[in-house]
């Protein structure tokens, strides 16, 4: 960015801008590597806007322009419009229901003409982040009080609920990353622990025979009662606590998870989760089976094969990279569409195959640097708003990075969320760029106390 213009560059954290630049460049390069075919004219490909990498380049430039505009904006604008923006975001989410166009098996996209797609569930991340920061930074908010905590959770999870209703499970899960912000701002660590335990319980439910798990849980509860027998003698409350925990656990295991799988998740999502833990999903009834097959057809049209295949091919691609990789454009797996959705969700394969373990580590290092830098930036803020916002950015990025990469290496179910700044996709690139530049803008005014 131009350092000749002191008005813009004053206080800007250039390391973040550079990391943004490097990541976007890596992204364009990876998309180029994944979609370039021998004989294509490179320069023409970049100029024509017909190729994916040229379009990504365009969005990269647009992202930069948006960044300049954001840097020219007053920081107070963001605090002032945070709630308004949130309301606008929710409105967009609601508008999706009547106006969505069904493409690629999702119901979360509004189409404007043929060229521009709007996915409010994705964009809403910015508004939620701002709104949450705004709420947490309010002088009146006492975040130690459960009421405030519940309000914060509602702010964060309302778009998630709409996302689920729009069949965008992956995007919905992203909103859970805001719990990290709340944790930083004083949410009891027990909430995180309980959440984590809940996740473990869900996975265990999938892995272990229901009755065995119920017996095991009962055993754990009895053991806890035995260990805590002195405390229980003193107060019946402890006993009640253990009993209720046991009750909740078994309830989750016996009723909540099956309910989620049968009524909330789409059959193909259930199948993906099952595939991840290495089990075959047998649909319970005829209707589910039919639905699954329909969905399968949709997906087949999109991905050319099922998700087992995706993950397997992705693992082969990354694994075949070895220590130093095959080199740019030398990858055999990533270049010939073995990995479906390769430019978008599975872009990491290109890096894993082309540059091997060393390249992947450097790539992860850049992300790590970005996250650590954002946390560092967050901690130097004087205003709570900026800090919350920074943590929000870090959490969302973290969630995207970890889930996306875990997806490609077989550690997470394929829920289809992009790799920030790298995956192909205009909306995603713009959203992340705007998020990051708002952070840079807020950080430039770190001496100011924003409310």
């Amino acid at each position, binding site marked *: 960015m131009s350092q000749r213009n002191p008005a813009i560059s004053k206080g800007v954290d250039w390391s973040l801008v550079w990391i943004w630049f490097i990541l976007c460049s890596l992204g364009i390069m990876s998309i180029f590597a994944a979609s370039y*075919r021998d004989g294509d004219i490179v320069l023409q490909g970049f100029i024509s806007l017909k190729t994916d990498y040229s379009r990504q380049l365009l969005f990269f430039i647009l992202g930069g322009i948006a960044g300049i505009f954001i840097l020219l904006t007053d920081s107070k604008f963001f605090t002032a419009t945070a709630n308004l923006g949130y309301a606008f975001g929710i409105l967009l989410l609601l508008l999706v229901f009547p106006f969505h166009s069904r493409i690629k098996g999702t119901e979360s996209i509004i189409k404007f003409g043929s060229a521009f797609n709007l996915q409010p569930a994705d964009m809403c991340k910015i508004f939620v982040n701002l709104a949450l920061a705004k709420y947490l930074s309010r002088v009146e908010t006492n975040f130690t009080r459960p009421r405030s905590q519940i309000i914060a959770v509602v702010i964060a999870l309302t778009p998630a609920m709409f996302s689920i209703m729009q069949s965008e499970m992956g995007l919905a899960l992203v909103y859970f990353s805001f719990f990290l912000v709340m944790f*930083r701002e004083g949410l009891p660590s027990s909430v995180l622990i309980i959440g984590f335990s809940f996740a473990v319980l869900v996975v265990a439910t999938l892995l272990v025979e229901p009755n065995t798990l119920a017996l095991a849980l009962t055993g754990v509860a009895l053991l806890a009662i035995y260990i805590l027998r002195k405390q229980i003698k003193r107060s019946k409350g402890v006993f009640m606590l253990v009993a209720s925990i046991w009750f909740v656990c078994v309830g989750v295991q016996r009723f909540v998870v099956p309910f989620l799988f049968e009524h909330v998740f789409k059959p193909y999502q259930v199948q993906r989760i099952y595939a991840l833990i290495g089990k075959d999903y047998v649909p319970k009834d005829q209707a589910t089976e039919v639905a699954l097959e329909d969905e399968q057809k949709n997906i087949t049209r999109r991905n050319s094969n099922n998700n087992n295949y995706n993950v397997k091919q992705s693992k082969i691609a990354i694994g075949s990279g*070895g220590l130093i990789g095959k080199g740019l454009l030398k990858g055999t797996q990533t270049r*010939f569409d073995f990995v479906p959705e390769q430019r978008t969700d599975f872009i990491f394969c290109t890096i894993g195959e082309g540059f091997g373990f060393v390249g992947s580590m450097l790539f992860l290092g850049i992300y*790590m640097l970005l996250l650590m830098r954002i946390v560092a930036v967050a901690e130097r803020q004087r205003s709570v708003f900026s800090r919350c916002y920074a943590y929000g950015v870090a959490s969302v990025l973290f969630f995207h990075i970890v889930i996306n990469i875990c997806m490609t290496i077989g*550690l997470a179910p394929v829920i289809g969320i992009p790799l920030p700044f790298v995956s192909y996709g205009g909306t995603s690139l713009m959203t992340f760029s705007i998020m990051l530049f708002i952070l840079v803008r807020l950080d430039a005014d770190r001496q100011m106390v924003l409310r």
Partner: protein
Amino acid sequence: MSVFNQSRSNIIRLIFAGMFLVIAAQLFHLQIISGKYKKLAEENALFRKSIYPTRGIIYDRKGRSILNNTIMYDLMITPSQVRNIDTAYFCQLLGIDTAEFRSRILDARFKNGPFRPSIFEDLLPPDMYARLEENIWKFPGFNLQERPVRTYPFDAAAHIMGYVGEVDSAILKRSNNFYQLGDYVGRSGLEQSYERELMGQRGIEFWLKDNRNRLVDHYQNKALDTPAVAGKNLRTYMDIELQQLAERLLAGKVGAIVAIEPRTGGILAMASGPGYNPNSLTGPAKQENYGRLALDVSGPLLNRAIKGQYQPGSTYKPLGALIGLDEGVISPASGYPCLGLYTGCARPVKCDEHKPGHAANLRLAIANSCNSFFINAFRLEVDNSEFHSSRAGLMKWKEYVNAFGLGHRIGVDLPSEDAGNIPDTAVYDKEYHRSWNSCTMYTMGIGQDKMTVTPLQMANTMCIVANKGYFYTPHFVEKIDGAGEDDTILNRFRQRHEVLTHIPDANYEVVQSGMQDVVEIGTGRPARIPGIDMCGKTGTAENYRIFEGKRIKLRNNAVFVCFAPRDNPRIAVAVVVENVGYGGTYAAPIASLIVEKYLNDTLRAESREKVESIASSDLMPTYLVRAQFLADSIRAATWALQTGDSTRLQKYTNRASRAALLDTMHKIHTFIPVQPKMPADKPKQTPTPKPELPVKGAGDSTR
């Protein structure tokens, strides 16, 4: 508040770092520890494509290509790209209906997937290709692909050249997986014998596949590829015009012609009748044609020159003379007082010549083909007192005959040569319980009894007689282009076999004089060519066949062997024609025409007329019509029995259609053997009751 929760930033940093560590560990596992992914990736994305070189060309002695390559076209289909085509028009071009069209598309989709090209119709006939080529742009998803095909520009030498076909499981196993499914290999003739030379060296190209198994690009810019090396060309001794003449002369006959260059052992021509057009086994209708040829009871696929086992008859006599002379049991001056009958043993044998003194000496005996003289000579050889017993005598005799190249495979460079038969003591011991003497097998002296030879062997004996004792293993290939002098394949043909050079030249001169007399004044006069000193010998053998439980006598097989010119032999010929009567009318003229054509490089006007008349005569054994009918109807009946589908059988059971069928197959229905008048070399009565079938599966086509 922020100060209060400061420590939590570290926890968040820890969470970030922890998750990244997990990812790093998994990456380490995938990329460094686990080696299987590299291999999986190669299986995924690399395709070893075999590049087939063009097969070698086979030339004749004047550099004309007898077996060459040409391009035919396959119609390929890529099912996924087929859309919006005028199916009706397309089917009309191909001559199929839409149901067939659909089933073929489904078939291609099923076998090779929708994204890879498969063959829709292979080896398009030229007219269909022309029609499609103009219109192929109208049919997206279809394209025409070149395919090299063997072609025989002279339509000749089918049995010698052989044909190529897809490998079968036996070849695959034998080759130790050198061949792959779908490869073409030589299945007979020189194509099979010189497979390794003709096929060249397969190249390998590494291609990158995409997720739909389409080949996308060369891998690493062809760095690992090995180029294909074209097959080596073969230079043969053959004279294709001579070959064409030989095949022409055998038209409508069962028999064989072999012509060898005695000085080198190079085979100039080798024909077998009935034959077939070699191009019928390369083009679009090859399967159909092959089926027809294979089911023909006259055996057109059989190369009788190396597979036909015939009694040599009198053509053995020059050999008998040489053996007798060498053993010292006869001399050029010895004679036999024959008056038309040999009476030395219990059963007399007739001799065609009655004039007293027709066997006054060896030369006369050969010229007049005296049976008595040679039976006597044979008995003298077997009962030679030098060996003390007839057993030892017979074995010694066998040794001589084997030295003449009879009774074992000569080793010609064609696959599946027959050995013929020269019996030894063991055979007679078994049959006669060890009580036999020279009278038991005395007709072997006139080339009958259990003696059988192939036409190739007969021609080779002539080479030995012409060369006065040595021969080179008969072979076709003179040179392999690009092979050095030390190549091992042809070395065995360059080795001179001095099998009988110990017999003095004087003895050969006597025998050759006798054989020259055969052509000049004796039984082989029809073979005489003005200005050429030719030595020859006629032969006739009776031809019996067991058919429908009855032993029928067919007309005799005519045999003629010769070489010319006498002083500097350049060609030795053996001719066998089945079912023609006697040697003079067919075998001798045929041999003579071959010699004339080769030595003079042209034919006189009268010879050309002779060619016409011989070529136009149909001498196929008549029983073949019925034999074909039987074979076909039995096959139809078996089919009906196995499948319950009797439609094929009906035309054989229905009286009217059956008569019509037999009638269209052949006009003649008689099985009465024709006993021809024999002016010269007459057949001898065979004492053994069992007839030697002249040729395995000999017979006629459905003419």
